[in-house]
């Protein structure tokens, strides 16, 4: 039933096509941003996600933010009407909006809402926003049908759809599973909110990246044949 619905909604391809190499580069750079953030946290500030979750998450989004926004804005859908800078602006707008959505979702699911958790929650949701909402905001802008297609129907068509859809879903599902160890009584520091959830989200995001690359390769391979 989903498939039937989705066929009607298939968007007309209007954006710049994305090649295998470009997709690889985009994903590599976003992955690189993550690792640079961790490297800086570890070597410059000598902190880890477990010891200073708020600070480290802040570093992650600071490093990841330009990479994601600048890269994804290049593949904006409405190429003709929308300038590159407008797309960057959309991405910047999407950052707090997506953070709000993620934070609300986390609180519905049971994230602690006390004042002392506020900085952690804010930084975590900014990171999550970069994984999920921001790329879509840069690429799709206010095109509701595209948003619906990616996030409600999970029906990616073009390579850039895969690049948005799979890592985003991966990050959310990873974060969901990452919450599981939290109630256990192992009394490890990483069981605190939002450390293991962040680890789960990052792992899910990376898996999503690999999956998206795989899909793009397979698809282009099939098309080439």
């Amino acid at each position, binding site marked *: *039933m989903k498939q039937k619905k989705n066929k009607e909604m298939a968007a007309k391809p209007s954006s710049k096509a994305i090649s295998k190499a470009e997709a690889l580069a985009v994903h590599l750079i976003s992955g690189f941003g993550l690792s640079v953030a961790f490297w800086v946290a570890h070597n410059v500030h000598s902190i880890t996600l477990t010891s200073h979750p708020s600070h480290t998450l802040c570093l992650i989004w600071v490093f990841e933010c330009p990479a994601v926004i600048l890269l994804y804005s290049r593949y904006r859908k409405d190429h003709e009407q929308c300038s590159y800078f407008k797309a960057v602006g959309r991405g910047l707008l999407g950052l707090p909006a997506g953070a709000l959505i993620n934070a609300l979702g986390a609180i*519905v*699911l*049971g994230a602690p809402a006390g004042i002392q958790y506020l900085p952690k929650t804010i930084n975590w949701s900014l990171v999550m926003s970069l994984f999920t909402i921001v790329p879509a905001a840069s690429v799709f802008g206010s095109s509701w049908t595209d948003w*619906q297609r990616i996030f409600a129907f999970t029906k990616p068509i073009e390579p850039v759809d895969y690049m948005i859809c799979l890592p985003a879903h991966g990050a959310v599902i990873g974060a*969901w599973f990452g919450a599981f160890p939290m*109630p256990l009584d192992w009394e490890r520091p990483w069981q605190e909110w939002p450390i293991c959830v962040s680890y789960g989200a990052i792992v899910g995001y990376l898996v999503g990246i690999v999956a998206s690359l795989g899909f793009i390769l397979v698809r282009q391979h099939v098309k080439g044949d």
Partner: protein
Amino acid sequence: MGKRIWIPWAIMALQVVAILLFTRGFLLTRTELPFYSNCSDVSQSPCSYSVPETQNRNDTVDPNQQRCWSKPAVGRLVIIVFDALRFDFVAPSTFFQESKPWMDKLKLVQDMAARNASTARIFKAIADPPTTSLQRLKGLTTGGLPTFIDVGNSFGAPAIVEDNLIHQLAKNGKRVVMMGDDTWTQLFPRHFEKSFPYPSFNVRDLDTVDNGCIEHLLPFLYQEDWDVLIAHFLGVDHAGHIFGVDSMQMIEKLEQYNNVLLKVVEALERQSAPGGLHENTLLLVMGDHGQTVNGDHGGGSSEEVETSLFAVSFKNPPSSIPSEFDTSSCELDLDGRNICASSIQQLDFAVTISALLGIPFPFGSIGRVNPQLYALGVGTWNFEDGVGNSQNQSKLEQWMLNYANVLCTNSWQVKRYIDIYSASSVIGFSHEDLLHIADMYAKAEERWSLTTKKVLSHEKESHNELLPALKRQINLYSDFLASVAELARSKWTEFNLKMMGAGLGIMLISLLVHFLAIKKVKEEYGFSFTSSGDSGISFSLIFSCFMVVMRACSFLSNSFILEEGKVACFLLATTGLIKMRYSIMKKKMILEALVFLLLITICRFTIEVGLSKLAPSSEIINAYLSWMLRITAGFPVWNIVAEVIPAVSLILLAFLLRKAITGSSSEGIWKYIIMGTNISYILIAMHWASESNIFNLAEVLKGIGRNYIPRLIYAIGFGQLLLLAFNQLFNKGTSSDCSKVLYIKTVAMFSAWSSTLILLLGKQGPWIALAFVIGGYCIMRLDNIELDAKDGGSWNTMLDPIPVTQWSLFAVCLFFCTGHWCAFDGLRYGAAFIGFDDFILVPQAILLTMDTFGFSLILPIFGLPFLVARLGQTEKGKKFVLTRLSLVYMIYGLIMATSVTATIICVTMHRRHLMVWGLFAPKFVFDVAGLILTDILVCLASHYYFSQVEDDALQDPFTKDNALQDLFTKK
């Protein structure tokens, strides 16, 4: 359809059998007897201790006034309890394979044991699990075995009602002084002459209890206004919990204890000269249980059950006991000294101490007087105070005679307990076991009469035969006592794995039957879980199964059980988010999805506040509460708001009910039922008004209001239910629209139950009821998202399992929202006393059940037709709607049964777990009670909702019913 109604009954029967079997194997029960031993009882025993006495001292004093069951052998007793004292803390490291840093720290104990083995002795004391302090103290003082359910014990108060050592001490005029762990004062609230309790809750605090003990202990050793002194130190236990055994803190604690013991022994020795304060004092240093290297205890592993007991008397006994009774093993310690360690069961503690102090043995004790510990009491070496009677009797013989006599009394007391227990208890011992025991006792008894004769006749002659005869006698008694203890252990503390396995097996079969029944009915009527109806497996089915399995798996860990409410909320929120996704997909009912998510969030915070009340250490909540209190103090407006909000939600609820009924055909009894509910709501408001002190009318109502208003509300509710039942029986009027009738019936049922449940829940009641209605509405609306989108056709036969899953998760959330949790202290006893001042078992049990399961079982199950009724008017008629309803009921039942089965499996796996009695067993009891109640309610609901269709059913030939019936009769 009439035939279909037996399906829930069949499933219920299977589940009840399974649960009964499993419970018989798992929950060991023992009835607490309300009897107490008295001094005068001993005259009924065959152990005529007075045989030699009548000859010697009959003229001087009445023996019963001097001594009771046995001759007091010890004047004063100092018991120092070190909580969680492992055996290897006390015994020399040479006893163990390798030396660990925490060994050999209690040097003093080893020195004393090495210096004189006949006055100081190390025992390995073996505890019976569960090895938690409270259970162990209970076991130590009653001499009985702990079980999960001590029938007759009131769940709330832990005070021991059985006969016990402390009770006997107090009754026989011994002055008991207690200091340290406040568990003692909880167990024995009125027994102590003086007590210095310190809170045992704060595990992180290593010193408060210990310092308090030390502060009081030493001065008391120089006072003479006590007979028994108990000092319970907690530091080692706490250090183990926090830092583990292999830690600096633990070693520091042990060294501190060594110093304390040094001072205590010095004080006692200084006063132990003849005529001194401690001339005849026995010092016991003991643990109540052991601990693992990680500091855990509660389970039955050897590290946890092996604790130690160190006993010193400050007088030399004249001889040592025969080697047959000496179970000790000896090793050279690091300094090359010979140190012996004997073994004792904690079960034997109460009776041995009673024998030493000369007080009656606790009625329910099944222990045996331990020979080595008994021999430490110097008094036991003299048969009578006027020793001179028989110079030809060696000291050893005197002791043996004395010991045999005590064992005789001991055996008689145990036999009396077993007899009375099996006569009065429902679940007693088997007949063969009892016969075997009686036989052993009779043999020992017979021998005893021979032996005593021998003692009399051989008194003045050579008595070469006396010693062997006494030994045989002692062995006979010991065998008898050992077999009683073994029998009691197997009945009271060992799991019956076969029964548990059988129960689990039947439970799994019932799940399979449940599943097959759903499948059968589904296929019979062409329902499917997908809209297209081809594959039979859809995302929603997989997702629901995943959620149910997730929840079931979460019971495998104790932490998840502790946080069960949050886990349920998490899963419910996930389903809510998935539904949100659907509604975005269809661009419909986004508002409902949002409201539902908001509701879940509110539920979640309610649960968290409820949970934080459990943990008193939660600082944020305390701060928050005090902040709230300050606000309320500042502005009386808040008080009024707190009073008004429940009233507003009550009015809202009444309005909703009225609206629900007027929207449909409001005729006949439905109108009266809603009216009755409205009156009840007004009465509830009046009841609350009478309890609060804002309104002045409170004074007027106070006299009549307190008990009569609640009772009136119960009566109205009961009347409404009766009315509904009668309507069901006699009014078979055929209605045009089955869906609508179903809807009205559901509303009527809800309104009939709601008033009572709201009253029981108190001020939070209206809001919870409102949440229930809103949540149910949202689930129902969201269920219809896809259905409305399609036009006719396939949705009629589509059955989405997600709403049912949501419904059950929502019910679980409401259970925790209403301030319950799966433990006996999670029961809200206060609810049972609304409308009643005195304790009357039956009504209060019913009220408590209704309060506990009201919003988590009763309302959700009776409200389940809500999911079906508003589905839209189908063309296919009653039969169709009702089949759908029965499917929904079966799926709901299956979800419940799955989670209970998971609990059962987890309880089986964790039966030796540390928390089995603290966490898993209460959870099991709650789940099992909930499942049986669910089954009953599903059956009742089936009768209530389905019977009207019988006329219809006759028109449709149900040929396949027979096949289904065959399927079931095979089982």
